[in-house]
């Protein structure tokens, strides 16, 4: 291309959307762009934060980057990269890597890295077992936190036991412990993650050199675990379908039913209904602590919070059980297929040296992958659900005292502001005066609600600042898949929104045409009908149960290493992930073609008129 290299806008040139200045200023000062930031390259982290950030939800970015950076920069000491800086403007999170370029510093860090990271690799299984113990302990602590409440009178037990602290103290204590737990969880999250991805990427790079045309999907199939925790929720739904048939109550699970209606019918059935509800409770704890998004937003609720997703999958599974079709994942067969794949590719290698290297690399990749796949259930799902639900309890309490109208309004406060509101309420409860908050927060909440709405309709540049010559930061490449080629494509694509073709990662091959069903929230999942094409924002393995009823899947975000790709392949469905804007450009009811082998989605119908 002879075109001069275009550049992205400088951070300083991005204007705050008019009318949202107050909401922008309310984000912590250390997340605001400063003039020096014009010297650096930033990109919009649409993979993790595809929507404007509620002020409270910024805690996820803060906790995650605190932990990621700590492990990269100071624990494992990655030789060529440090942590990630983050900024927010118009509700969008931009991030920038911190590369190490001085050869002497790299050399020093290489020595430290080999002492530290290699220790992790060598003792991976023991350390990961230990990690699971740590995480379960942390989850236990969060589960055991007392309910958030301020009684009119302190219970008499406080007197009888000589407890010596009142409920308002517990309130602040619970909040701080919960925050501490969330930050700790993210530290644990990054204890292994980059090392795990790095080992995988080492194998990945070797495969790409040995087999230049191998697909990303094939490489991840060689490594993917078949018994990771993340498959369990779906397996539990299948189990419940089988139990419903065994108990002879399968008839009451119908397409389009509501959870409440099913519960009412189950209760009317007596023993068999109660038996199934017991089974359901067994599954829910812990396996339904899986949320319908990636856990980064407070509104990514879990199956436990909204049973409509697992319930919507029951009729399909039940029909299969009735027809005598096997519905259990053929784990042994999947493992055999993976092993055969590894053997078959090995045989294609030209030299003995390559086969020996391949054995070393696949061995390491297999060692690290259980963590890469398994950690999400504990961190982004289980713990995160507990965390946001605990914050909801504070929301309900504050709403009850007139701080704002609804429980979920609490997420319009930053975590600092929320602590101040809790202290305000604590002081008011102790003094017997009314709190100040109800005069302060409703207007602020209204302003921020309006800002989130304004930002949602505001298109933002995919990156800011000068384009670097090369993107060689291993963290950026591994976690975000950002390459120089991506950037060039972003620059070239600027403004071609009219195209009927959407490009993404080829996640699972096959070509299917059908009617689109755009699902933007868990509440919409029940609307999915057999044979439709799922179009959603995020791809997540917790959606696995609905894959049995759809013809193909398309998502806005997600890479070719995503769990969704694995699930789609298991079901043999075409899938394209990471299209950027499928949920905005495709409407429910439109005919679309999904080419999962090429990573292309084509809109076949004229744009529908707005109803």
């Amino acid at each position: 291309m002879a075109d001069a290299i275009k550049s992205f806008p400088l951070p300083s040139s991005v204007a705050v959307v008019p009318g949202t200045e107050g909401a922008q200023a309310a984000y912590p000062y250390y997340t605001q762009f400063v003039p020096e930031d014009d010297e650096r390259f930033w990109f919009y982290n649409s993979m993790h934060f595809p929507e404007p950030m509620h002020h409270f939800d910024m805690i996820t970015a803060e906790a995650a980057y605190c932990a990621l950076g700590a492990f990269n920069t100071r624990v494992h000491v990655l030789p060529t990269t440090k942590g990630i800086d983050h900024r927010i403007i118009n509700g969008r999170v931009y991030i920038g890597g911190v590369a190490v370029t001085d050869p002497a510093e790299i050399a020093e860090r290489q020595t430290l890295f080999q002492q530290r990271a290699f220790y992790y690799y060598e003792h991976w299984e023991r350390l990961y077992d230990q990690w699971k113990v740590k995480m379960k302990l942390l989850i236990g602590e969060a589960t055991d936190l007392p309910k958030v409440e301020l009684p009119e009178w302190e219970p008499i037990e406080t007197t009888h036991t000589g407890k010596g602290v009142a409920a308002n103290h517990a309130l602040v204590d619970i909040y701080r412990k919960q925050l501490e737990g969330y930050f700790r969880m993210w530290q644990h999250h990054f204890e292994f993650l980059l090392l795990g991805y790095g080992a995988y990427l080492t194998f990945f790079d070797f495969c790409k050199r040995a087999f230049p045309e191998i697909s990303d999907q094939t490489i991840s199939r060689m490594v993917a675990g078949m018994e990771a925790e993340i498959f369990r929720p779906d397996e539990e739904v299948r189990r419940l379908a089988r139990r419903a048939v065994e108990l002879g109550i399968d008839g009451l699970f119908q397409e389009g039913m509501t959870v409440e209606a099913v519960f009412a019918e189950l209760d009317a059935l007596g023993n068999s209904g109660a038996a199934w509800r017991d089974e359901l409770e067994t599954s829910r704890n812990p396996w339904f602590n899986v949320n319908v998004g990636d856990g980064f937003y407070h509104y990514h609720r879990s199956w436990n919070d909204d049973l409509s997703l697992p319930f919507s999958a029951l009729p399909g599974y039940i029909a299969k059980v009735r027809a005598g079709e096997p519905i259990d994942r053929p784990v042994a067969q999947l493992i055999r297929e993976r092993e055969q794949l590894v053997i078959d590719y090995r045989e294609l290698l030209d030299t003995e040296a390559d086969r020996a290297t391949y054995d070393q690399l696949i061995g390491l990749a297999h060692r690290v992958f259980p963590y890469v796949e398994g950690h999400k259930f504990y961190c982004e799902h289980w713990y995160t659900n507990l965390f946001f639900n605990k914050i909801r309890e504070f929301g309900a309490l504050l709403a009850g005292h007139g701080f704002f109208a609804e429980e979920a309004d609490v997420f319009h406060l930053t975590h600092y502001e929320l602590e101040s509101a809790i202290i305000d309420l604590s002081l008011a409860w102790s003094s017997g005066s009314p709190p100040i908050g109800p005069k302060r927060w409703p207007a602020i909440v209204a302003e921020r609600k309006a800002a989130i709405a304004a930002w949602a309709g505001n298109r933002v540049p995919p990156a800011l600042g000068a384009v670097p010559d090369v993107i060689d930061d291993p963290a950026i490449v591994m976690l975000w898949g950002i390459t120089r080629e991506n950037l060039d494509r972003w620059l070239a694509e600027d403004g071609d929104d009219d195209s009927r073709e959407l490009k993404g990662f080829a996640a699972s091959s096959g070509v299917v045409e059908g009617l689109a069903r755009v699902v933007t929230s868990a509440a919409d999942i029940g609307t999915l009908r057999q044979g439709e094409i799922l179009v959603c924002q995020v791809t997540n393995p917790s959606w696995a149960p609905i894959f049995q009823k759809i013809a193909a899947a398309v998502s806005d975000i997600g890479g070719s290493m995503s769990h969704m790709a694995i699930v789609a392949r298991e079901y043999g469905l075409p899938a394209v992930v990471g299209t950027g804007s499928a949920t905005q450009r495709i409407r429910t009811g439109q005919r679309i073609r999904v080419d999962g082998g090429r990573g292309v989605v084509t809109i076949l119908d004229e744009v529908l008129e707005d109803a």
Partner: protein
Amino acid sequence: MPEAIAWFADVGIHDRPVVGGKGASLGELAGAGIAVPPGFVVTTQAFELFLAALEGRAPVRARIEACDADDLDMVTALSREVRRRVVEEALPPAVETALLAAHRALCGEAGAPVAVRSSATTEDAADASFAGLQDTFLWVIHADDLVARVRECWGSLYSVESIAYRRRQAFPEAGVAMAVVVQIMVDAAVAGVMFTRSPTTGDKSVITIEGAWGLGSAVVSGEVTPDRWVIGKITGEISVRDISDKHIEHCPVASGGVEECPVTEDRRRTPCLEDDLLQALREIGRKVERHYGAAQDIEWAVNRGGAVMLLQSRPETVWSTRAAAPIAEPLANPLAHVMGVFGVRR
């Protein structure tokens, strides 16, 4: 002494000196249980008998060996003279009888159309490419036409380029011979080529398939941009689907030969192969590759009944002849491999 005619069923790869590379390959494939259009080979023995008749009138091989490769006028005059003699010389009765009998046996009284293709015996790829690679005559119906096409194939040994090349290499003319393949013409709905090793990257893990509507000659000659697919050899995953604008196709002419036809608008951008046929081709490609123990370049056709037939398979020569250097040596400490990702600026 070999016969003038050899049926595919009776020959294999080791019969190359008698039936040429193409004939030997087709016989070998048929023997391995791969579907190829039925046919026979006019052997080098037939050629030798014919040449003996020619030599009986005036020398051929001796004059070519005496020819100066750098004297283009001399080579051109000699080529013209020998090729004229090849056209004019009657077939030895034994050869003509055997050829016509085989033709009747293959095509029946109705006279099914055949393809006539030269099948060079030389191991030298460059020589083969001069001598007759382009000599494929499609949709040949009449017996006299068949005889004329066989002569043309023989005559191609004496093209200017071919003679000049052999003289430059100082090959002896004794043993320079040409076999000719005669096989039932596949009325191809779709045809094309398949590479069991990537022609662009040498990747052994993928099969590349190119195809277009109608007879394969449109693809082989480059007159149409074919659809192109890349398929995982092991996984069957179709990772690339390049569907091109296939504006023309080669169609048979009822009276013999082929012509170029425009492709109707609705078919131009329609993929010429569905996934099930792509997978069938992949399976065949793997089978042939396993049979030979080496990567293959294959020509294939799908007949009007939807059956896949192979027209030719030859060993891949571009990548297979390169020395394979290891991609990465194993390390005493396997963990040190990760330094390639973490340790250095790329």
